């Protein structure tokens, strides 16, 4: 559906995206994850042919042609939302659909349908600047899907939405996927990505750290993850957790601990040892690590401060 091959983009004195390759299969929800300044938006802009990569190639639908050539088949929600403030809602979404090559009358019919679905029916003849911010975001979302795209590219779609609108938008995305639309979205909110994504790619400082199906990443990236809750006395837990042959990493809260077992270690043996040491357990749970934890482990604290921002004269990363 979408393949990036060693794509690189440099701005003055700063590499925003560095040899990034990834592949988005048809019909999935694909998450592009990374901390601020990781190069997510630059990557998406290259996919959309808004900026050209310095090296590498972007291939869409397995066919030649740029994002702009295929624009009728792609819906795009940019990171920085923007609408013509003085236009009427209906006129605006119809215009944007026309930009995607939809015939005017058809655009009007589809617009009426979607505006109603997102509860904007009563506002369709109002000017955009009379709408609340949340409503404007919904209007913008409508404008990205009105032309029935096969691929939906959403840059931080949930940023700035309240819980109610987040829910509405999430439902719409899931439903679109059910209808066979491929969705690529960027985010740095891991909880959302974890629930939504079939596949994902984590990038930091323009480089790919890992990609693939979420379940595979969880399996391969870290060992077994253990959550332990104490009911009073922790016994000799501290000593046991310190054994590097059994425990690779620990996050001990005293009454609660999250640990990652060393490769080959047996959780049952640890349980037995804990009980023998006199610990009273409220909880002992083998679990998969959260995406948030994988993300933090991979990205590391140093990625929290992105590399220098691009030169003021250059496009934003």
């Amino acid at each position, binding site marked *: 559906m979408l393949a990036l091959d060693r794509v690189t983009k440099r701005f003055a004195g700063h590499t925003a995206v560095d040899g990034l390759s990834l592949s988005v299969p048809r019909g999935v929800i694909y998450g592009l994850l990374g901390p601020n300044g990781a190069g997510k938006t630059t990557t998406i802009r290259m996919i959309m042919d808004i*900026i050209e990569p310095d090296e590498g190639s972007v291939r869409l639908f397995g066919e030649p042609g740029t994002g*702009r050539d295929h624009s009728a088949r792609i819906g*795009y929600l940019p990171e*920085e939302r*923007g609408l*013509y403030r003085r236009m009427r809602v209906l006129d605006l979404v119809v215009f944007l659909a*026309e930009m995607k*090559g939809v015939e005017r009358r058809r655009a009007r019919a589809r617009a009426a349908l979607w505006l109603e679905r997102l509860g904007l029916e009563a506002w369709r003849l109002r000017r955009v600047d009379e709408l609340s911010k949340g409503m404007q975001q919904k209007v913008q979302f409508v404008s990205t899907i009105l032309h029935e795209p096969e691929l939906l590219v959403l840059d931080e779609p949930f940023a700035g939405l309240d819980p109610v609108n987040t829910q509405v938008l999430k439902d719409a995305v899931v439903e679109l996927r059910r209808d066979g639309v491929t969705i690529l979205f960027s985010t740095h909110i891991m909880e959302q990505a974890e629930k939504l994504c079939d596949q994902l790619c984590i990038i930091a400082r323009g480089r790919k750290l890992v990609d693939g199906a979420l379940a595979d990443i969880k399996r391969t990236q870290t060992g077994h993850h253990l959550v332990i809750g104490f009911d009073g006395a922790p016994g000799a837990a501290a000593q046991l957790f310190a054994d590097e042959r059994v425990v690779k990493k620990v996050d001990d809260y005293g009454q609660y601990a999250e640990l990652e077992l060393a490769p080959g270690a047996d959780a049952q043996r640890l349980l037995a040892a804990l009980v023998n040491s006199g610990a009273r357990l409220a909880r002992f749970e083998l679990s998969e690590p959260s995406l948030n934890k994988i993300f933090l482990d991979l990205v590391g604290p140093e990625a929290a401060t992105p590399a220098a921002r691009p030169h003021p004269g*250059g496009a934003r990363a």
Partner: protein
Amino acid sequence: MRKIWAVIRREFVERIRSKWFWISALLGPVFFGAMIVVPVLFAGAGGTRRIAVVDGTTGAFGARVVAGLRGGKIFRATRVPAGVGVVDSLTQLVGAKQLDGFLIVTDAVVETGTAEYRASNVSSFRDVAELQDVLARVAVAARLERQGVDPAVVGRAQLRISLDTKKISGSRTTGESAAQSFALAYVMGVVLFLVITIYGVNVMSSVVEEKTTRIVEVLVSSLRPFQLMIGKVLGVGAVSIFQFVLWGLGAKLLLSQRQALLAGVGGAEEARQVFQMPHLSAATLGVFLGYFLGGFFLYSAMYAAVGAMSSNEQEARQAQQPVMFLLMIAYVSMFGLTNNPESTYAVTLSLIPFTAPIAMPVRWAASTVPAAELVGSLGLLVAGIVAVTWVAARIYRVGILMTGKRPNVRELVRWVRAG
């Protein structure tokens, strides 16, 4: 193509819907109506002058001068016999504004042709010309009679000449007077300057709006920046043409109601003399519209580029100054262009694409422009539009996605080369 069409329609419809469009659509005819009414009001305001004629002549000369002045429209003259202290008391009357002035005639008028006029206002050409005219007629008649010519013959021989000027355009007489040519040229220049600026700035703010709201990202991922720019320029251009049509209809309506309009301000009778609609031939109209469109395309491409390199409205307003200055060159030269339309300076301005949109129509209205010059000027203008649009499109393409500080000239050159 359909996308460009959608951009054109959006620009057109959104602008037509704005109240500013209709305000200016109304203001045009109001301004035009003022052009009809104001001169008449001014002519009325000139008013009549109350003067005394101090008669120091021995014959009937003084009485004849008074009669002659009364025959005209300007003076209400009274005859005052010359005497001791007369001049002083009249001077006081003028000072007290009970009198506008006084004319002193003696026998010397007939002999040497000199008289004296003292008044609170002696700078009015109209007043002075009328006085001279009447005095000359009466003096000539007096001299002839002294030579024994029959007064009846003198009366018949007297002829007042009014000079009727007509402009020759090509080899046809257009029926256009000098004043009308001048007025037409001047009005055309002003309108062209204003409208090119206003609609150019319209294009600029439209670009800046798309840039500041970031909607340009969605647009540019759907159609090429060049298509967007062209659609925008054509859309705004269509609005300006529509504006002209409305103005034209408004002016036509006012013109047909001219008598009623002037009667309303109490000057119907004088109307025909003071205001005559300049003869606007199809060719003149064609030149006007042609150069308007040319100028609009040339300048709006530049304005689009300026908008693209600015990140907000304020910055754009600063950055547009060089563009404005370019258009100003022809505008500030307009007086020279109308007074001396054949000078090398005027011809040069009407050939350079940046000044031609104003200079050529002004020259055209003020004089007769050789066909070769018109063709050359149009050719250069079209070439200029192509070149400027090419450069502007490249600046536009890079600029609309930029944020941050405005590029300097070196960066601009790089943008243009980068294409």
